[in-house]
């Protein structure tokens, strides 16, 4: 067997992940030299600096042409680089909101931030993975770090319960994904996605059962990871029980990376098998996820749990974009709406590029809005109420506008953005994704999406009503300020509002980033 001849430059495309792993190692090693009472303020700063550095490298890599890296086990394309940027944004904001959260609980330790960095490195690599075993290993790299983070406050009953549920269902879904990958390997004789396209078409003729089972199992594995209905049961409990900054990282990073990998795997699979089947699969998932996510969120008075259900609903909107990737003949309306937006390529290519752009922008928008909202939730919660489960009640938000107008404004911006109301980034991203769906001819799905997101506005605005129109409850807790949480709030509010009004610069990147390898 001939060994590959790799040089240092071959590892350059992995630089964002390498930076994050290096930062994590520094955090772990430095922890050894600290006494229990030493100041640990530098740890969050180091994490944020690492996230910024990795994000900057990702932006630089976005302008590289799409290429295979490390013998085709991974690819570097603008799509994966943009995803790494989204992950770094989520990581930086979540780390900022973790500072006061951990200090209040006396749980400041280096391994918390190190685990966050390891998880983010896994996410970045997952977005680049172009081979089924690499996909599996990176799914596990990010999942194992996230299991540990979920159960990080292990003395409490809720975090250990959330960690347990997340672990069992996460490991279960990974095993389903792996078995599906094994069947696809059996059908095609390769695990590399790029090499799989040809044999997949041939295998469809000789053993369709094997291929279909493999595709469905891989799809189910991913559906668990992105929390699509009916594979969503773990989400509310895990999101509620996990430490709030970890929930923020899960809702942003883990979901984004899983979506990226799902898109990459199924675009390849869709070339080998009938895309109609994938269209049916993803349309059904999108429909169920949007409707169920929104309906289940409506009765929630627990804001953290409401955000968990809303994250399910948002996965549904993203799945509409994924479904639009597998349309074989764009709809009639295409010529009316979308043809002027982009030039070059066939109508189908344009529709696909639009769908990819919508998915990426949506992930960025959701990262800013959701991480900001979770940062706000963590600023308001008190440790004593956690075991009773009242730490996240809507009452906590009563009269917030009178006590901390800045916080209330930030939270209102996040809620409007999640609800998709202009002028926020959430509105822009929903517009892009639904426009892509309409251009692809998925009119029915778009109507369901718009209606269910209108239903979603109800529970988002309820938070705003509590903040601005309810009186301050008697004996309300003292609201402690902390520079790091407020910095996270300011940054995400600024992004939510500014990118909602002038999406220009990011839009330019997005046209670039919708280039996916092999398209």
């Amino acid at each position: 067997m001939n060994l590959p001849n790799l040089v240092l430059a071959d590892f350059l495309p992995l630089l964002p992940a390498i930076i994050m792993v290096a930062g994590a190692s520094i955090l772990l090693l430095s922890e050894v030299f600290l006494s229990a009472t030493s100041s640990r303020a530098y740890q969050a700063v180091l994490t944020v600096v690492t996230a910024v550095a990795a994000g900057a490298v990702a932006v630089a890599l976005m302008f590289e042409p799409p290429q295979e890296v490390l013998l085709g086990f991974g690819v570097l394309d603008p799509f994966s680089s943009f995803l790494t940027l989204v992950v770094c944004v989520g990581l930086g904001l979540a780390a900022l909101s973790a500072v006061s959260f951990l200090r209040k609980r006396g749980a400041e330790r280096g391994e918390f931030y190190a685990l966050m960095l390891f998880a983010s490195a896994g996410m970045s690599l997952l977005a680049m993975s172009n081979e089924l075993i690499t996909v599996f290993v990176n799914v596990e790299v990010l999942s194992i770090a996230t299991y540990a983070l979920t159960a990080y406050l292990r003395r409490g009953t809720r975090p250990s319960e959330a960690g347990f549920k997340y672990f069992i269902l996460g490991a279960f879904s990974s095993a389903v994904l792996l078995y599906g990958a094994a069947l696809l390997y059996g059908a095609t004789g390769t695990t590399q996605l790029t090499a799989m396209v040809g044999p997949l078409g041939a295998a469809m003729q000789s053993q369709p059962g094997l291929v279909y089972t493999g595709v469905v199992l891989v799809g189910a594995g991913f559906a668990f990871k992105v929390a699509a209905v009916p594979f969503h049961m773990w989400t509310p409990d895990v999101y509620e029980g996990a430490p709030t900054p970890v929930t923020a990282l899960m809702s942003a990073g883990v979901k984004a990376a899983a979506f990226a990998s799902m898109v990459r795997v199924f675009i390849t699979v869709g070339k080998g098998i009938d895309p109609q089947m994938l269209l049916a699969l993803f349309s059904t998932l999108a429909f169920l996820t949007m409707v169920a996510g929104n309906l289940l969120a409506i009765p929630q008075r627990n804001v953290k749990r409401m955000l968990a259900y809303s994250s399910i609903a948002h996965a549904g909107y993203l799945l509409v974009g994924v479904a639009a990737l597998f349309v074989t003949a764009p709809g009639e309306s295409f010529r009316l709406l979308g043809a002027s937006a982009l030039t070059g390529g066939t109508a189908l290519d344009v529709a696909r590029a639009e769908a990819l752009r919508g998915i990426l922008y949506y992930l960025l928008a959701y990262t800013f809005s959701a991480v900001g909202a979770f940062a706000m939730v963590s600023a308001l919660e008190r440790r004593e109420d956690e075991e009773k489960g009242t730490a996240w009640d809507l009452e906590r938000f009563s009269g917030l506008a009178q006590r901390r107008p800045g916080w209330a404004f930030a939270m209102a911006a996040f809620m409007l953005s999640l609800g998709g109301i202009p002028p926020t980034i959430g509105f822009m991203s929903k517009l892009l994704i639904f426009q892509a769906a309409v251009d692809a001819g998925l009119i029915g799905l778009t109507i369901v999406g718009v209606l269910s997101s209108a239903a979603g506005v109800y529970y988002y605005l309820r938070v705003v009503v509590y903040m601005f129109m309810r009186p301050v409850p008697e004996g309300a807790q003292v609201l402690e300020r902390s520079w790091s949480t407020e910095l996270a709030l300011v940054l995400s509010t600024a992004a939510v509002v500014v990118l909602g009004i002038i999406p220009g610069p990011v839009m330019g990147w997005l046209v670039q980033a919708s280039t996916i390898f092999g398209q």
Partner: protein
Amino acid sequence: MVPITYYLLLAAALFCMGMFGVLVRRNALVVFMCVELMLNAANLTFLAFARMRGDSIGHVSAFFVIAVAAAEAAIGLAIVIAVFRSRGSVLVEDIRTMKH
């Protein structure tokens, strides 16, 4: 030589047993073992196909899966211990504080 189909059927049976076990067993440790069973079913499938095709990717994959399963076992057992310490029980129905 045993035909490849037998290995594949055995793997499928193991996978289904594991899946069934995760859904119905009450003890967290047994649930955890069932997940491991599913991973090993996937391993067996990889190996059977690798043997059938006579290439090495399937064999290599199995090693990766074993390594990942070991890491997963470490974190999984740690979480089960944390659950036991906070509740004194590892029965799945006792791990249910959060309302639905």
